[in-house]
């Protein structure tokens, strides 16, 4: 029994406890809806406690990561080979094989059950646990039919989302990513509030499936084009990963010694290893062009023709790789763009959000939208870094910017409060997308933090709407007015959440929005995309206050004006009920707390942000050798410690052990 083993088991429990809870709730449901509801609340509250303990244990690792490698280093991996030797050392890999591509299964490429925690997903897992707990509470009083199966599906969804966040195997990620569709379909189609719920559910599933099939193609493309590089003479895998600063300063001879045109080895599905492979193949293509250029420069007239031919060939193969990468980038982005959604791929969203029950809408905007943005940081940026530099901001940043403005305008014109919240979510996510593609530490830290903050504020908006939905028949803003006088406490919390959502300082969104804006002011990004995106993002914040405060004015100010009550003849009950207070007050408190003390979360994110920014810096140098890295204090990047059998028996060797000529 090592610490490693215990932690791994805890992670597995956090991931799959909801499935067990689903079964228990179904059983309890036989005793009646009340029993199901109680069980569900108990189960999800327990899950929050489990996650909190995982959080606390993870906190111990945060400041110990001073030496970073260019690949993700998932901690707390179940099946970590380090466990076997009782050594309590993280090897950042796993032994657990799901499906091997060859019968002997030892050295062959295999899909692994590779889950773990790092700075990118730990916060999102915490958010997931918390928001599903609140979703269960929101379901109380808004879900009347078959609550047991509703909660069971909700828990199934939780497991799928958690699995996607925790996966470090690209196929495993995709499986969990797609598995989320099944519970979502039933949750919208069966418990939806509107008449067109089945239509909305079908549209949602087909649309996202359509997008994510492209992602599958992209994933296959990534796996096939980035096998483990094999050294031409030693026939062993080899890697050479200097920092961007090192790349810029090291002489070309050194690079010549370090890079060979490797042979493709076995394919791998492990995201950390794929990251290394991508970087290695990109570098080899880059350096073969450089070598050819050098040789051409040194060539005597006699050798000139051959050297020119060599250069042409090297350039050709590099541009081929790049064009392939371009399509892979687009294919990968397709699924994520639909999931987030980025305008104009958002048209499934009004229907799905409008028809789904509030608890589900809340989970969708708080958690499921993050699957898309998470996919970008986990898959797209590390696996197609060059394309992210070339097309990230110009294409998807622009789409994000259009989305910020467009969705904000749509939100203003909405009279249905639920759709207003939905469009506001799209607008914020547009900003998040821009921030992600800033591709530097500020932008990535800010975006990952914003995933959490947006989860809290957007989720909180729907929790607030649940308050109204329990009391009144409609969420049409025109039928409300002057609620401040009637529900002062509700008004107070609503204003706090609204302020957090428009990014007022001292509340959570401010911090992440400022970081994302800072990311856009990186001179390298300015060179690519100019100041336009930053200006649009800032205007988006203004528009957010415009529609939010217009809504506040309409609903809370002025003389009292109420729609018909939800239950006939019974006037709505009083101000915030204790049961309603838990999610509302907890979210408001988190908004304030994370606004005032965001640094612990940023410390958690920091290693991954530095790592991703480091990878992108390398890509920037490959694209433009003059693009010097901007950070004064360079992170110490080291090759990952030897990771035995992480990729099915192939031991990665670093080029620091100088490859023989």
């Amino acid at each position, binding site marked *: 029994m090592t610490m490693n083993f215990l932690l791994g088991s805890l992670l597995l429990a956090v991931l799959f406890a909801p499935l067990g809870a689903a079964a228990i709730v179904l059983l309890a449901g036989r005793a009646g809806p009340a029993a199901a509801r109680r069980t569900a609340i108990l189960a999800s509250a327990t899950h929050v406690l489990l996650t909190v303990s995982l959080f606390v244990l993870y906190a111990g690792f945060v400041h110990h990561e001073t030496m970073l490698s260019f690949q993700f280093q998932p901690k707390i991996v179940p099946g970590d080979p380090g466990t076997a030797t009782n050594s309590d050392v993280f090897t950042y890999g796993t032994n657990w094989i799901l499906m091997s591509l060859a019968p002997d299964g030892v050295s062959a490429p295999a899909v692994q059950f590779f889950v773990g925690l790092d700075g990118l997903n730990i916060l999102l897992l915490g958010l997931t646990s918390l928001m599903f707990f609140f979703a269960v509470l929101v379901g109380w009083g808004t879900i009347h039919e078959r609550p047991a199966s509703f909660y069971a599906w909700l828990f199934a969804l939780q497991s799928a989302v958690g699995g996607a966040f925790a996966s470090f195997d690209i196929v495993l990620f995709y499986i969990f990513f797609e598995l989320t569709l099944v519970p979502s379909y039933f949750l919208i189609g069966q418990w939806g509030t509107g008449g067109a719920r089945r239509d909305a559910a079908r549209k949602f599933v*087909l649309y996202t499936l359509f997008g994510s099939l492209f992602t599958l193609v992209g994933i296959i493309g990534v796996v096939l084009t980035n096998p483990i590089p094999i050294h031409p003479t030693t026939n062993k895998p080899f890697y050479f990963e200097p920092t961007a600063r090192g790349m810029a300063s090291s002489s070309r001879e050194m690079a010549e010694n370090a890079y060979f045109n490797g042979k493709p080895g076995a394919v791998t599905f492990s995201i950390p290893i794929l990251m290394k492979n991508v970087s290695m193949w990109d570098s080899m293509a880059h350096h073969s062009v450089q070598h050819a250029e050098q040789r051409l420069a040194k060539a005597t007239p006699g050798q000139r023709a051959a050297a020119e031919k060599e250069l042409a060939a090297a350039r050709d193969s590099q541009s081929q790789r790049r064009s392939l990468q371009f399509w892979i980038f687009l294919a990968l982005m397709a699924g994520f763009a639909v999931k987030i959604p980025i305008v104009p791929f958002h*048209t499934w969203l009004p229907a799905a959000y409008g028809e789904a029950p509030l608890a589900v809408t809340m989970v969708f905007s708080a958690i499921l939208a993050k699957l898309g943005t998470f996919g970008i940081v986990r898959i797209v940026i590390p696996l197609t870094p060059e394309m992210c530099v070339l097309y990230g901001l110009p294409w998807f940043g622009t789409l994000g910017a259009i989305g910020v403005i467009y969705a904000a305008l*749509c939100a203003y014109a909405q009279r249905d409060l639920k759709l207003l919240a939905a469009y506001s979510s799209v607008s914020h996510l547009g900003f998040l997308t821009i921030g992600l593609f800033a591709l530097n530490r*500020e932008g990535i*830290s800010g975006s990952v933090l914003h995933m959490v903050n947006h989860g809290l504020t957007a989720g909180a908006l729907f929790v607030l709407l649940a308050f109204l939905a329990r009391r009144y028949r409609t969420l049409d803003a025109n039928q409300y007015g002057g609620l401040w006088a009637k529900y002062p406490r509700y008004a107070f919390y609503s204003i706090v959440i609204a302020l957090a959502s428009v990014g007022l300082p001292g509340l959570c969104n401010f911090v992440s929005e400022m970081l994302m804006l*800072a*990311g856009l002011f990186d001179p390298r990004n300015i060179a690519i995309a100019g100041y336009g995106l930053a200006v649009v993002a800032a205007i988006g914040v203004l528009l957010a206050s415009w529609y939010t405060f217009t809504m506040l004015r309409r609903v809370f*100010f002025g003389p009292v004006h109420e729609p018909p009550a939800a239950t006939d003849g019974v006037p709505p009950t009083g101000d915030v009920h204790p049961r309603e207070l838990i999610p509302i007050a907890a979210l408001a408190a988190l908004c304030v707390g994370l606004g005032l003390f965001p640094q612990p979360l*940023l410390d958690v994110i*920091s290693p991954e942000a530095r790592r991703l920014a480091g990878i992108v810096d390398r890509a920037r140098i490959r694209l433009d050798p003059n693009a010097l890295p901007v950070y004064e204090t360079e992170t110490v990047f080291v090759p990952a410690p030897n990771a035995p059998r992480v990729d099915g028996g192939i031991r990665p060797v670093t080029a620091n052990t100088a490859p023989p000529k």
Partner: protein
Amino acid sequence: MSSAVLAILILALLLGATLLTPILARVGLRRFAHLPAILAFGASAVLALNILADVYANGPAGPTPGLSLDLASTYPFIDLNLKDQPTTWFQAGRLKVTFSLAIDPLSAILLATVTFVATWIALFSAGYMHGEDGYARYFTIMALFVLCMCLLVLADNFFLLLAGWEGVGLCSYLLVGYYYAKPSAAAAARKAFLVTRLGDVGFVLGIFLLWSAGGYHTDLSAIFEHLAKNPASHGTLTAACLLLFCGAVGKSAQLPLYVWLPDAMEGPTPVSALIHAATMVTAGVYLLARCSPIFVQVPYVQAYVCVTGGLTALLAAFIALTQTDLKRVLAYSTVSQLGFMFMALGTAGAITPSIAVAAAIFHLFTHAFFKALLFLGSGSVMHAMGGVIDMRKFAGLRKLLPVTHATFLVGCAALAGLPLLSGFWSKDQILDSLHHAGEHALHYRFVFIFVFGVALLTAGMTAFYTFRAYFLTFWGTERVPEEAGHHAHESPRVMLVPLVVLAIGALFAGLAVEQLTKHGFSKFLAKTPAIQQANRSYEAAHVVRAQSSPHFNWSVAGMGTAAAFLGLAGAFALFRKGELADLPAGMKPVHALSLNKVYVDEIYQGLVVKPVEFAATGSRQFDGVLDSLARLISYIPRLFAALLRPLQNGLVQFYALGMVLGLTVFALFVVFKVSR
């Protein structure tokens, strides 16, 4: 105690008051809800005076002590340590935001002014708001308001400043919308928040531009230091200054974003006093004063600032000429007086920055007294008149409200700039700065001469509309509206004491701190590091040929005084009967233009609000189009299916035919391919 600790103590006191007030209300001590705020403000004022003394004796304070907060692996999982460096708020990559405070003459003076005036306003409020429904809510937000303003004034970090900046915006939103059931209050609150936020878009972008140009520092002092060593390009500086000014224009209600301030009258009257005198609107003036090291480097922007101030002052004064709502007159006069401050700020760089900035801050200082006094006085009138504030409905209140009358008269005289009152000295310094800039500036001299003319004209108009309001309210035969009932009476003592105290300030503050101390105020302010730096960069760019120490200019003072007396005489001639005078026919259109606020609100409604709303509706419609487009694409597979479906018709012969045809084509293909 060092002044940094004192400053933190002030912030803590105010935060404590903010948190304590709602608790008091919760435990049934609602009638004492005013105590935390008043006590905290009072204590803060005392502490602020201590800071002032400390800064005067020992110079600016060093780095702010703070806490470090780290995640740890052992219980309690968080490390808290006291240290000498400021606390980090958040940091990622190159963006590091700390709780660092700048304690120097500029911030100390503002801190003392804010807390002192706020104390009396809070005391007045205790009487004025007595028995109101949201008594505790009012004082909670008041405390938060002053807290945010103090944070704004003390911050050395741009993002901390921004936090205070947005914080005062929020509090003004909540206080203007205090009577939430009143639709006009709700509209005014939203307008105030959104219009100032419009300016904040520019402010935030300007901060980031300075951040990236200023060596990725977020502390103002560090940025200025970096820029002094590594000058940024002229274009960057111009853009950054214009963007910062954009924020200042929104907060300090200058053209074109001044429209929110007059509407902000919808809140309780003491709130107006707070917004107009001590907090909120002075933020923009303070920002430009603090950023003077970079503003002095871009003469183009400075000329723009000056002209903006001049035009705003003139326009607001013009509108104030005909308003019949007493509070509205005062509101437009605030806009106009802020314009004066910006005129002075705009001359920094054309003349010695320390003199220009001192003129603006000195006017801010004196203005805080007499404007708070005037608003509280109008509140006292409103209190007596049963909530009526339309000057057409009452007159001749001299006898009825003797204390209010006397103090209001002092306020009016100070605002009009009658000699020896505080407003006179500060307005004179501004006029002198403009006059000086018009004579000696290297660039845009004609602009300063023009603005000087505008300022003189505006000074005359100020005296006219101020005394118009005074005569209409207090002179003539006594007339009281029905709402006041039969027992209209002078306000209780708790409201009169603040009036008297502020009146004393309005009478003597200017004389005492500047004239009797041989320009002590200006000289003390000039010791602010930022202003010193502005002075250095001014001296580097100019052959200093102009007089560079504060002085009193008799001819300019004479012109200003003449303008003030002309305005006063005009008001006396027209309104001494306490009634609106008939206008000659030729003046009617001008009168209507002024009365309808030059139709600016309507113009904005038509040019900005409506188009954006139209765009919003359009977007919503377009979203439907997008959706049908997606649906159309989803029909394509079905379309294919529809095309292919007839093939599967169940007729064996048809299938056979298909097979034969297919085979034939295949055979032909093979034959021809092979034979070639």
